[in-house]
């Protein structure tokens, strides 16, 4: 048992420390650099300035240059890491002078700080979570599947590439959220609420998970109690949880409570409306709709924000109602998936990295529907390709994904007591049919998933090759990132009130992309031709939206 834990942790850390050797975002690209510099700059700011100036524009704190835009807990974390940096080498965080610092020992220091968070928070949280869910008997989970489950969760390439490659501390917010899920599964709702509040105060993006947490806690407050005092009992519990949450908030926000203006300034920094509906090519609905209707020109930001909010809430609502009526951990996980995906697809100012928030519950849901979850995880990593290419992490992406899939293949070959399916196709190179739960009914649907997975894998490879080797047509310089976004855009049917169904439909655009390319290489694209192709392309891209409306 101990040996297995050591093994899981050490392999997880090994892969992370290898990815750490790769370049980070914005390495040697002045004047703004990238997320790495952002994190370093925050350390510089919070170590040197008084706490009230952290979020404020002052002569020493130029908010235009990577101003702090995460909630207080993130700032405190920067403070601690910054103090350690100062202890090791004051040059790491000298005010003003350390901007754009490019130094091997500093890179090593920053990388180590992420690895520490992985070791202390993220990996243990994921391991415990997997362990708990494996014991839950929602499904028959044999030893092989639970090994596979742990590997899938601990070694997920997307999170590793973003945190240890690109450079961010998602592992902390996700780890805190996973801890909250752990306590929720153990029915320790108050502690769970505290952890979730912490996670929310580390990254505001955890709002993606907030609604299901709220609804689940609300529902359980009023569920198990003696008949007579249902309401009062529930109310007391609710007050207890609410009080704890508010208290946590107060403790964390204490330094800014001197004036309302300060609090508003922090809020303004955290929720930047001015930045527009999306920044880069993100695989969400707005990015694709934008191909047809130029959203930025037609709608002012405020109005767009309202539209986004309505769409998001509208798409989560059925799932939440379902969760409220059948509040059990399984529907909770489903609802987390739905909610985070809805936010990702419809909300305002989405980053491609935010897909990680959806991958967390999907990873945890893995044993219930292995193939579909794996497919989603795979596509989610792929959707971040434009970002990874910019960071020169393409090699790391390919190698890590290959490792991940090979590992899954190896683990599916472990011996098991379960009867193997007799019919195994030779084309099924990763032996994924073995991890499908066996039930005779919907084998057609299972097969669809299986071949869908391989098809989309092929599509990804084709897109990847064309991205690397085919120069983009001159008048459409962003065609490949856009295609990748469209390819990876998934739409999730809400778990409707009664059944709790859950399905992911992947709309593939690769064939459109290919034909478009060939045409372009043949005809030296004239203007009319261009219009035609865009038209053809955009017609296809309606499909994800239509899926959403169903």
């Amino acid at each position: 048992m101990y040996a297995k834990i050591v093994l899981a942790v050490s392999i997880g850390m090994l892969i992370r420390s290898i990815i750490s050797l790769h370049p980070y975002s914005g390495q040697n690209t002045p004047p703004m650099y990238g997320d790495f510099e952002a994190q370093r700059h925050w350390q510089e700011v919070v170590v040197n300035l008084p706490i009230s100036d952290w979020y404020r524009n002052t002569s020493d704190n130029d908010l235009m240059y990577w101003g702090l835009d995460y909630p207080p807990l993130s700032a405190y974390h920067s403070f601690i890491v910054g103090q350690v940096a100062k202890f090791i080498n004051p040059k790491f965080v000298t005010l003003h002078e350390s901007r754009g610092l490019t130094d091997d020992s500093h890179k090593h220091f920053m990388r180590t700080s992420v690895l520490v968070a992985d070791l202390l928070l993220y990996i243990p949280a994921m391991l415990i979570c997997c362990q708990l869910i494996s014991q839950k008997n929602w499904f028959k989970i044999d030893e092989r599947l639970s090994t596979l489950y742990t590997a899938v969760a601990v070694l997920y390439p997307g999170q590793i590439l973003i945190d240890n490659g690109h450079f961010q501390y998602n592992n902390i917010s996700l780890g805190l959220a996973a801890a909250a899920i752990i306590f929720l599964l153990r029915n320790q709702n108050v502690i769970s609420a505290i952890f979730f509040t912490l996670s929310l105060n580390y990254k505001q993006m955890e709002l993606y998970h907030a609604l299901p947490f709220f609804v689940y806690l609300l529902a359980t407050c009023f569920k198990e109690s003696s008949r007579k005092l249902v309401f009062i009992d529930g109310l007391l519990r609710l007050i207890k949880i609410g009080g704890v949450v508010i208290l946590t908030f107060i403790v964390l926000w204490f330094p800014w409570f001197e004036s309302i203006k300060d609090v508003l300034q922090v809020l303004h920094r955290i929720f930047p409306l001015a930045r527009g509906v999306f920044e880069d090519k993100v695989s969400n609905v707005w990015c694709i709709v934008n191909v047809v209707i130029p959203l930025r020109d037609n709608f002012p930001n405020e109005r767009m924000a309202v539209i986004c909010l309505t769409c998001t809430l509208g798409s989560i609502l059925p799932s939440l109602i379902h969760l409220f009526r059948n509040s059990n951990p399984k529907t909770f996980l489903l609802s987390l998936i739905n909610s985070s995906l809805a936010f990702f697809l419809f909300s305002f100012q989405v980053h491609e990295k935010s897909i990680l928030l959806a991958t967390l519950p999907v990873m945890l849901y893995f044993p219930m529907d292995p193939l579909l979850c794996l497919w989603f995880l795979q596509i989610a990593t792929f959707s971040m390709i434009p970002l990874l290419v910019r960071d020169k992490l393409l090699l790391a992406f390919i190698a890590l994904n290959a490792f991940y899939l090979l590992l899954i293949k190896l683990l599916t070959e472990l011996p098991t007591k379960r009867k193997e399916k007799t019919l195994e196709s030779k084309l099924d190179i990763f032996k994924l049919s073995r991890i499908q739960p066996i039930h005779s009914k919907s084998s057609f649907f299972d097969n669809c998933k299986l071949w869908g997975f391989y098809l989309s894998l092929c599509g990804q490879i084709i897109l990847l090759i064309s991205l690397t080797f085919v120069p983009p047509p001159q008048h459409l310089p962003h065609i490949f990132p856009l295609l990748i976004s469209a390819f990876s855009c998934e739409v999730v049917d809400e778990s409707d009130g009664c059944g709790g169904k859950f399905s992911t439909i992947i709309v593939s655009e690769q064939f459109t992309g290919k034909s478009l390319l060939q045409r372009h290489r043949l005809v030296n694209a004239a203007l009319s031709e261009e219009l035609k192709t865009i038209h053809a392309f955009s017609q296809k891209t309606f499909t994800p939206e239509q899926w959403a409306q169903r």
Partner: protein
Amino acid sequence: MLEVKNLNYANDMTITFMRLSVIISDIVYAFGVKSCIDVLCSGSLKRNFLTYVLLGNVGLFFVDHIHFQYNGIMFGILLLSISKMCHEKYLQSAFFFAMLLHMKHIFIYVSPAYIVYLLKCYCIRSESPLRSLIKLGSIVIAVTITSFGPFYNQMPQVIARLFPFKRGLCHAYWAPNFWTLYNVMDKAASKVFAVEAEKSAMNTGGLVQEFHHLVLPSIKPITTFILTFLAILPCILKLVFIKFDKQSTHRQFIQSIVLCACTSFMFGWHVHEKAILMVLIPLSLLSTSTKNDATATFFLSLVGSYSLFPLLFNAELTMVKALFLISFITLFYIQSGIRRNLKIYEFIYGCGFIFVFWYEQQLQYIFALNERLPFLPLLITSVYCSIGVTYFWLIYYFSFLFPGESLRRQKIK
């Protein structure tokens, strides 16, 4: 990139190219592994395990892919040759081995086992020993001519390059062998008898050169040769006199390769720490055959891989190398089921590495010894590892010479 004067030339493309060349040449290694596994074990569990042990060899990763050398391809050829030998295709085996010798002459250390085994199994057992001998000899000579042909008029220079005796008994970082212990004893004796260190005896100073011992007699190349030869002798004699029996002789052949390599590692002149792979990889082949062999592989993997740590000295590689070793060792431990076989003092010795590592990473700074004794971590590493390697060598030699003895002990347990 290929201009001869371009020393120390490096850019990203060159690095990628060179690294890729190593990765691609590893296909040979993978091929060798596959052919060996086909001969040596059956059953998918055992096969998977052996594949993992051979392909996942930490030392090979360190030396080839992080440090940079082309060992993979050579060990690939060695494994091919071993598998041919097990298939009783002796001529092919001899061909591969001759090729290997001309790629890297360090493999000459295992040639006694090859020569004896080939003569015994191929020449003497065949109907006309003389004809077989001529066949064998002509293959070896043909390979030699092809290899050295272009350089025939500058042989002395080539030989001098190949066998550099000027470099001293030990490498800058002491490979964990007998001479490390010898040096340390010398050092200790010089402290005890208060011998003046006038001949610049700072032999851990990081220089590759000859040096003189202070108390114990200084060692000359010829001494190491005689010692190596004497130490290999029992193993070779045993190999000569065992009865030929299809099942066990394969195993004994591989064991004798391991022992030849290990003995020369123990007593050789100017041994490099990378040479431990020559012991480790053939030894790994046996890790599925008996529990004893598995334990031995486990033990030597730990010691040998740790002894390679000083090769990767960059700070950012510290985590990578440590975690690599931990992952490999733990997975080996879980998969091989050697828990009962591992003796308690072996386990304690293994745990000792944590302290060695800890000292190197942290303790020396805490005690502020890093400036006064900058080479102490290296010294501790090589001494600690050499204890392990010596222990392994003694135990393994004993179990090879007296297999019944160790089997009986196992039963008593």
